[in-house]
């Protein structure tokens, strides 16, 4: 079965420090991977995706993610965290049974807290 794991419920970093939010996946075939961010009482905002190509994917707001096929990981990173990055982050993989349009399977989410 397809699945996504976000092993950390919460990540705490100081403003200006680099941040990493971890994600591992299990999916048959080539994975289509996504990161979304959710601010309180809001919907999800798309950050970035990996479909194919370069293992380092750059996205919105200075975020990037590194795809590692051998470790089945897709960790989200940012070189210098901002207080405004504090939010709930979700990693997702597309259900391969739906082809290029399939629904998403989400991890449990990781709460990122950036302190001044």
């Amino acid at each position, binding site marked *: 079965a397809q699945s996504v794991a976000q092993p950390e419920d919460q990540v705490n970093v100081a403003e200006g420090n680099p941040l990493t939010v971890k994600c591992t996946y299990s999916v048959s075939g080539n994975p289509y991977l*996504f990161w979304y961010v959710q601010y309180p009482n809001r*919907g*999800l905002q*798309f950050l970035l995706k990996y479909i194919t190509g370069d293992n380092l994917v750059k996205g919105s707001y200075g975020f990037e993610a590194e795809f590692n096929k051998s470790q089945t990981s897709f960790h989200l990173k940012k070189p210098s965290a901002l207080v405004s990055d504090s939010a709930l982050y979700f990693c997702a993989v597309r259900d391969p049974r*739906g082809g*290029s349009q399939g629904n998403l399977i989400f991890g449990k989410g990781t709460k990122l807290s950036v302190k001044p």
Partner: protein
Amino acid sequence: EAGVTQSPTHLIKTRGQQATLRCSPISGHTSVYWYQQALGLGLQFLLWYDEGEERNRGNFPPRFSGRQFPNYSSELNVNALELEDSALYLCASSPGTQYFGPGTRLTVL
């Protein structure tokens, strides 16, 4: 370009009633997805519609149903509401990347 819109923003119902949630996709998007975000349960896939047809369904009982209209907007219907149906219901549209609406907060009393 307008994003995905959902209505109503909040909905309060009592147990046993029916709820109807609505979603309008981004112009040109033909696929609409529904997800439930319940406290402590994360984001769970409910339903996927494309070109008016149901393409996939998550692990939810049949009292969760929906449809997609010719203009690609969609409705989610929840019959015989239960307390545990209280959640944020998110709609997304696609092709390719899924873009989400702000959600409908359903509270069942």
